[in-house]
């Protein structure tokens, strides 16, 4: 990052509306610690991180940690909202397409999900904003932290997830429906609906838990784009603003935060999977 063009000191002064000449520049650089050797700067930053101090923003002098803390709550709300929205849509769709395999509805839904998975999240965001804010005026263009403002950004993040989830759920349910106990239950006369909601869904959905965990990466990364477009006040937007202002401490803090969250989520997903799996033992090992 010290290879990059654009001097943070210069940017800061310009943003503050101060006329830049060599003397002022040099003084500001000294204040910001930019004229120390690279390793010294990096070293002291690292030491600070370990102490829990993420440094101060170049742009406005506030503590990086404080700025991040304000945004984290909003980003978490957005991520959770997207997850819930995508599950609410993909669960019924996934089950429906599995049960009515190769029917017209199945083919249509699979086509849509395939298209949805090929659309970048920024395109979805732009289209959503156009149709719902400008054409239809159903939602505010600048999303404040309200529920109404939450819907569009969540939808934007949720759509790529929906496509992946729907296909996975469909595959799991299909696999479950092919198992011998389903044929046995049908032969005994159990009504189809009871088979589906009794055993099939229960067994098929357990691996879905891990699916959710694996989407963390998409959610964290996608939040930057979506928050920027919809002006949702989360850490993603914060990061984008910091990039424009060359506010290195904030960028660094953001990356570290994201990494920590990501690793935590992966860990939890791993644990969850290992806990759910051996408890099942569902390969029909009966004592003969």
């Amino acid at each position, binding site marked *: *990052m010290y*290879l*990059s*063009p*654009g001097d943070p000191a210069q940017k800061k002064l310009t943003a503050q509306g101060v006329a830049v000449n060599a003397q002022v520049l040099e003084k500001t650089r000294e204040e910001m610690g930019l004229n120390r050797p690279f390793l010294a700067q990096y070293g002291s930053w690292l030491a600070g991180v370990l102490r829990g101090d993420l440094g101060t923003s170049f742009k406005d002098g506030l503590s990086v940690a404080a700025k991040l803390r304000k945004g984290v709550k909003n980003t978490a709300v957005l991520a959770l909202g997207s997850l819930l929205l995508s599950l609410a849509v993909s669960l019924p769709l996934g089950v429906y397409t599995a049960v009515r395999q190769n029917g017209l509805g199945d083919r249509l839904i699979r086509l849509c999900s*395939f*298209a949805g*998975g*090929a*659309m*970048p*999240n*920024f*395109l979805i965001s*732009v*289209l959503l904003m*156009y149709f719902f804010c*400008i054409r239809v005026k159903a939602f505010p263009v600048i999303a404040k932290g309200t529920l109404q403002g939450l819907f569009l950004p969540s939808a934007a993040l949720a759509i790529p997830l929906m496509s992946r989830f729907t296909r996975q759920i469909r595959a799991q349910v299909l696999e479950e429906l092919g198992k011998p106990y389903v044929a046995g239950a049908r032969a005994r006369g159990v009504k189809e609906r009871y088979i589906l909601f009794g055993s099939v869904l229960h067994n098929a959905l357990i691996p879905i838990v891990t699916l959710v965990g694996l989407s*963390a*990466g*998409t959610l*964290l*990364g*996608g939040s*930057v*784009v979506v928050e*920027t477009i919809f002006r949702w006040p989360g850490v993603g937007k914060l*990061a*984008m603003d910091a*990039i*424009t202002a*060359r506010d*290195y401490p904030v*960028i660094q803090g*953001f*990356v570290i935060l*994201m*990494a920590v969250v*990501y*690793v935590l989520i992966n860990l939890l997903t791993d644990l969850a999977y290992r806990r759910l799996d051996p408890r099942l033992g569902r390969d029909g090992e009966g004592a003969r």
Partner: protein
Amino acid sequence: MKKGVLSSRRAAKRRVAVFLALALFLAAVSLAAPYLVPNDPYQTNSDRMNAPPDARCPFGTDHLGRCVFSRVLMGARTSIFSALALVAVSFAVGTLLGMLCGWYGGVLDELVMRLADILLAFPQMVLAIAVAGILGGSLFNAMLAMGITGWTLYARLARSAVLQLRQEPFVAAARLSGCRTGAILFRHLLPNILGPLVVNAVTQIGSMMIGIAGLSFLGIGVTPPAAEWGSMISEAQGGMQLAPWAVLAPGGAMVVTVMIFNELGDSVRDLLDVSGQ
């Protein structure tokens, strides 16, 4: 219950052929873009701004009066080839590193795998945005940003495959017959591990395309006036009410292209699955 395994293999091959042909067609068209464009993609036209589609400009013009169709064509070149190049390089570097790690083990293995672990602790797009944002906007930086984590997938796959195959008798036989290490690695091991690696590579093309476009959209990838789908959408976003075609054309092109490459990846994976039965 033996179903027609032979017939499903043939169907899988046909599917791969269809999408490979489509993908190659797209690549060829975009390669020839400079010769196919009806108008100069960089020529601004203050009297034809935001004009709807007509005979001269099939997709209309953008807010600077440039022909959208020509820009979409040029953008295809950027998007498709940058993604292809990126995947090719990640594939080559990752596979090579992975094979070396699997073969030699030791310090090299430790170093490379630790590096991969560290890189994978970050969500890919977050790291890409940070890197591209800091390095500044350019196609090369965007590709670098996406590629930083991309190689790890191939490295891990290649490494575990080599570790497995190392024990096989045919490797010992090659050694005993005096084969040099390089020859063993490339002539004997590589063909056997190529399958899943290639599947992953093809599947990655679509997401790399989207990633680079996303970075360009944010302004930290390809920057205007260069024609690139992501930056085109970003530019046209504000004027969407006046000229929706300036967003829909590059957007549609992107979706169709990614869909074709994704389907190609899917069908290659199905083909290898079927023949692996």
